[in-house]
């Protein structure tokens, strides 16, 4: 048997003898990057992060969320047209080819951004970079695809949206809080007109405005910055620098209004209690901490956990409470989403206001605040570390501010949140105008007035 050290020594010697073969050792390998590196490739913003894993997620993020759509439903229409027939290949060919390479193609949208995303094995980066560039700049927006594929699934989409009571309540809360812009419905609803505003021509002209270089960003998780900029430079040449029609995107600064909306629904019960929140740049870190302090979902097993709402509603089964700060580029919404049986949702709504009043009165223990700060930090970093959400966050940041979230600064600002700050913030929220959106059995579910909120 050959001893291992002898073998390796001879291999080393052989290597040395064979002359100076330029071979990269482990020490010389490009170090894995934990946060996004941004760059500018001929006017197009790109960001990449590489942990040297075997797979890559590549996404084109466009500033084309429901907030920016000139007509209701255009963002949804544009999302549906992703990976449809382009000038160079058919939708079927795109699907079959990416299947063969083991890739996954998805398109989705938020209130602010539209994502066209491909996940694939690391080596296939050039293929998918080319594909995404093609989708962005060469989609045909054909009439028959709109009728035969997009309109065909529309009723099912509407039905799914209509059945999601919690989602409807959150949508209504945004509408009440922000009116237009961020208040625009995220998905087509059963009651809103769709065909009146959306057809392939309108979608194509929206795409022309949206898919221009300053308006999109290319984000990759699992690809080196050099490789990414090389392929983006090569393939994204066809993306225009400005819209060919000369139109620009309609953008208005968000303004918080507040108010109450009640909708009768048979599929379930949901209440969203919302207040003005913190934006994506972390303008009010105390709001993030307030969201985790209110909580509602246990972070540990077999116990309600530290959060005020989960402790208060520990005895009511079948109730779902999610407190979060919905952060957007220039505004935020602190939401407490309650759903479940009508009576328990009513009780939870009352408990929510009670908890807020307790925070405003300063009766929350120091320890709970410390736990909430730690949890807020974890949530922030986890979101920035998980692949799907990090690509989304980085892309949205790039198209709006030209930079990705500064995690160090954000964590530092969360650390600086004190019980006193929470107290004054909660007091200010209760004194200001709240947003209450109620969907479900209106006979049982409370009015904002009954809860003790000003709307």
């Amino acid at each position, binding site marked *: 048997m050959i001893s291992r050290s002898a073998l390796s020594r001879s291999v080393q010697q052989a290597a040395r003898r064979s002359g100076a073969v330029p071979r990269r050792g482990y020490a010389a390998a490009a170090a894995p990057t934990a946060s996004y590196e941004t760059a500018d490739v001929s006017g197009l913003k790109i960001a990449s992060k590489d942990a040297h894993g075997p797979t890559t997620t590549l996404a084109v993020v466009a500033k084309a969320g429901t907030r920016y759509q000139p007509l209701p439903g255009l963002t949804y229409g544009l999302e549906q047209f992703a990976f449809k027939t382009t000038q160079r290949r*058919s939708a*079927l*060919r795109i699907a*079959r080819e990416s299947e*063969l*390479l083991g890739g996954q193609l998805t398109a989705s949208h938020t209130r602010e951004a539209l994502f066209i995303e491909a996940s694939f094995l690391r080596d296939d980066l*050039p293929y998918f970079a080319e594909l995404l560039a093609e989708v962005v700049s060469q989609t045909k927006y054909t009439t*028959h695809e709109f*009728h035969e594929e997009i309109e065909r699934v529309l009723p099912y989409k509407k039905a799914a949206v209509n059945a999601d009571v919690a989602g409807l309540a959150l949508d209504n809360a945004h509408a009440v809080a922000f009116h237009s812009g961020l208040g625009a419905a995220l998905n087509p609803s059963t009651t809103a007109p769709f065909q009146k505003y959306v057809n392939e021509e309108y979608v194509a002209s929206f795409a022309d405005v949206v898919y221009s270089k300053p308006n999109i960003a290319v984000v990759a998780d699992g690809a080196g910055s050099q490789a990414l900029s090389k392929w983006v430079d090569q393939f994204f040449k066809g993306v225009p620098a400005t819209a060919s029609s000369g139109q620009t995107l309609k953008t208005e600064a968000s303004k918080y209004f507040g108010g109450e909306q009640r909708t009768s629904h048979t599929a379930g019960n949901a209440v969203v209690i919302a207040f003005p929140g913190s934006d994506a740049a972390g303008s009010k870190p105390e709001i993030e901490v307030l969201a985790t302090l209110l909580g509602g979902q246990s972070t540990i097993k077999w116990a309600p956990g530290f959060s005020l709402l989960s402790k208060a509603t520990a005895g009511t089964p079948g109730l779902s409470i999610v407190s979060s700060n919905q952060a957007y580029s220039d505004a935020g919404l602190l939401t407490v989403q309650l759903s479940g049986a009508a009576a328990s949702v009513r009780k939870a709504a009352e408990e929510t206001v009670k908890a807020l009043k307790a925070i405003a009165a300063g009766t929350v223990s120091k320890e709970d605040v410390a736990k909430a700060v730690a949890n807020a930090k974890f949530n922030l970093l986890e979101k920035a570390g998980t692949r799907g959400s990090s690509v989304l966050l980085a892309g949205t940041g790039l198209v709006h501010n030209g930079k990705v979230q500064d995690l160090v600064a954000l964590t530092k600002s969360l650390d600086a949140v004190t019980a006193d700050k929470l107290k004054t913030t909660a007091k200010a929220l209760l004194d200001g105008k709240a947003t209450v959106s109620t969907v479900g059995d209106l006979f049982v579910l409370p009015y904002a007035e009954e809860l003790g909120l000003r709307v």
Partner: protein
Amino acid sequence: MVSLAPFVLKRPWLVKALTPAANWYAGASGYRQLGLRYDDLLEEENEAVQIALKRLSAKESYERVYRIRRSVQCSYTHKLLPKDQWTKPEEDVPYLRNILAQVEAELAEKDALDSMTVIKKH
């Protein structure tokens, strides 16, 4: 089916020579006297044409049905249309053939892709 059309279309002088004969042939085949267009005569009973017909705009689709019903009526009564209602040569434009070609290409691609392999170029 072997067609001479590509051979002829490549040679302008031949096109020029044959056009009067082609026009005479189209007129003599009789469908224009019934108010039809050439694309109205395409065989409908196959998948590709059915898909193509669904892709016509509402107006084109209505006019097509109108022309066909009018010609059937003419056929029943053993009469031709009055001469001012005949299809003029400039009206006899392909409105379905292009869509049909596109649909056939799509269907052919679908068949071909059932046993496809990707050759990576990079």
